[in-house]
């Protein structure tokens, strides 16, 4: 029997609206007591948490672990270690692997790999593809995929562009209670683009991806979600108009949720002026007005989730010209720092809202809630909102270092996690 006492941490739990300094006693991975000044049984490992936040385990519902198929970028082992050091007890991995996760054996493979690596401290919940081979033509075996453990469906990296396939996916997925998570992009409008279409792309002569490429698909899908009554989730939302569309849809009672990445509330397309290929991602960095709208969306609850779209690429792949470079950046190890620095420190979001966007809401969306109460398995994230640190990509646990935040000083950093009976402190 192992007993651990998380001592004098500031528990922030949106599910119970708790914000108080407490001790949490954990025995063999299960919370046995929550309260102040708990007695310390003999043999208990005491973990002081004064000044730190204790929150229900953070989850990143949008990461690319690259395995199987692209193990030179990331593996389930390195990606989940990156998650653990970024303060996440769980991630959802996107199915744009090779082969795509469109078969129950592949779902099983991902989950068993996850249990095998890093002592299984990070839960890896696969998101399976909506369509076979992510080709957008015929539905994947959705029922089988969900039975095997898939928590959502997405062809991420590509949209489900055929409206009929999308309609069927929404209808079919609703029987199994999983959301269809759409990468919103009208391919014909986005084709060839490498950055936001606007004044900066005009100045740089780089082909643009217009905001309407995202917005038109969101508008279409919202109508489909309304028509079918199904659950629909917008991945990595990036424009002001998109926020407006979702806000309106929520007001109407359409069952929609959405997420935004830390880079989309931190950077604008001005960053592309450096021609640094770590500013190339899809959706692209947008304008200052879009950043403001996205932050307003987080504030008023239109945007439910902060997810990183962690997209590892090797140095060789990124160290090419801007047109050739692949889209995407790593995000797991900078998510908390960027959120605290850009939103909490600036008074745009309070810590309760932050925990909601990193834990309560995303866990509700994929149906994997956690509770902080006696009897519940201990699944906790510990972070220090006042710790100042400088991003050094060479220290990342991720196999890839493609981050535009190298050298940036951030406030707020994870200090540990507890999950599946294991404490990790760093």
């Amino acid at each position, binding site marked *: 029997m192992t007993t651990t006492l998380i001592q004098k941490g500031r528990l922030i739990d949106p599910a119970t609206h708790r914000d108080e300094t407490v001790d949490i006693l954990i025995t063999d991975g299960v919370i046995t007591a929550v309260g102040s000044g708990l007695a310390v049984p003999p043999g208990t490992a005491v973990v002081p948490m004064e000044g730190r936040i204790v929150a229900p385990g953070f989850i990143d519902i949008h990461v690319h672990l690259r395995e199987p198929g692209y193990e030179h970028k990331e593996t389930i082992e390195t990606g989940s270690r990156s998650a653990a050091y970024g303060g996440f007890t769980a991630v959802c991995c996107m199915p744009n692997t090779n082969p795509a996760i469109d078969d129950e054996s592949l779902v099983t493979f991902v989950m068993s790999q996850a249990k095998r690596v890093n002592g299984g401290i990070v839960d890896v919940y696969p998101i399976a593809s909506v369509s076979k081979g992510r080709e957008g033509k015929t539905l994947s075996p959705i029922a089988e995929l969900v039975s095997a453990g898939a928590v959502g469906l997405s062809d991420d990296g590509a949209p489900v562009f055929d409206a009929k396939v999308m309609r069927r996916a929404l209808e079919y997925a609703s029987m199994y209670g999983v959301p269809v998570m759409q990468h919103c992009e009208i391919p014909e409008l986005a084709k060839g683009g490498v950055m936001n279409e606007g004044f900066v792309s005009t100045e740089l*002569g*780089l082909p*643009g991806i217009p905001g309407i490429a995202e917005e038109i698909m969101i508008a279409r899908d919202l109508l489909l979600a309304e028509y079918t009554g199904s659950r629909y989730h917008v991945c990595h939302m990036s424009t002001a108009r998109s926020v407006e569309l979702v806000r309106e849809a929520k007001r109407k009672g359409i069952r929609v949720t959405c997420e935004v990445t830390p880079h989309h509330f931190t950077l604008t397309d001005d960053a592309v002026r450096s021609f640094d290929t770590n500013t190339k991602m899809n959706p692209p960095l947008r304008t200052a007005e879009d950043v403001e709208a996205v932050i307003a969306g987080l504030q008023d609850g239109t945007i439910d989730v902060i997810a990183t779209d962690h997209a590892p690429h090797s140095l060789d792949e990124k160290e090419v010209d801007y047109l050739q470079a692949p889209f995407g950046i790593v995000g797991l190890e900078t998510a908390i720092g960027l959120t605290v620095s850009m939103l909490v420190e600036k008074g745009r979001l309070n810590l309760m809202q932050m925990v909601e966007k990193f834990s309560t809401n995303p866990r509700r969306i994929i149906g994997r809630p956690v509770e902080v109460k006696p009897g519940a398995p201990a699944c906790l994230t510990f972070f220090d909102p006042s710790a100042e640190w400088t991003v050094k990509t060479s220290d990342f646990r991720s196999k890839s270092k493609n981050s535009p935040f190298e050298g940036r000083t951030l406030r707020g950093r994870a200090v540990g996690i507890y999950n599946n009976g294991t404490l990790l402190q760093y």
Partner: protein
Amino acid sequence: MGLSSRHLLGLQGTPREDIQLILDTAVSFKEIINRPIKKVPTLQGKTIVNLFFENSTRTRTSFELAERRLSADVLNFAASTSSVSKGETLKDTARNIEAMKIDMVVVRHGAAGSAHFLSRIIDANVINGGDGQHEHPTQGLLDMYTLREKFGRLEGLHVCIVGDILHSRVARSNIYGLKTMGARVSVCGPATLMPRGIERMGVEVYHHLDDVLPTVDALNVLRIQMEREAGGYFPSLREFHRYFGVTKERLDRAGRPITILHPGPINRDVELSADVADGPQSLILEQVQNGVAVRMAVLYLLGTQS
């Protein structure tokens, strides 16, 4: 006094004094290339590589001539853009250049920012010979040189750039340079070939040539790439010529002499009718000659920095 930068990557942000210095220096080089002995020893012992990832006979030969007339050792490196990964080639080639102790690099590449990329990873002076749809600074400079020679000034001159603005690095370099030098700049072309927010660059936007011609001093007519028709940017070359082609008839209607520039090569009777291209207002061949002088000036100013 020399240039403020070690590289010429673009005209955006290039200070007025630098542009002035390049244009003034080019005046003396133009005089030199009209002498019977056209060669000066200025860059003797310097090695320059012309690194062309895109085909361009004109720009490359113009640079090569300029380099040889300055007595530099010249290496031509033509890399095919169809090779598997253009980017890797650029990086690998750059490392080779470093190893070979090259002093200056002229780079032409299909991706915007590739000259910036090179300048970050190698020690040599980098001259952008055209990067994607971004900039073509020596073309901008030679166009400005040609206009200044003709009008005696750039300040207050009304220059209209015509055609495919969206895909044109020539347009961007001209806009940056001319605006810096105080010219009035307009662009005219189909709405489908007009990049978003271009008016924020301080230019006037027109979609009908007849609206702008009455106030224009010079037209810089861009080459229309034939593949834009297939790309659906306009219905047909015939229609493009009828509505955006610069013809003698249209120029005559403007009621004032209008100088014609074109970066070449010309699609005769598409963007420019033959009689205008060969007419008395055309400075197209003058541009070719000035191109060598301007490139000599740039190479000289960068190559002799302390």
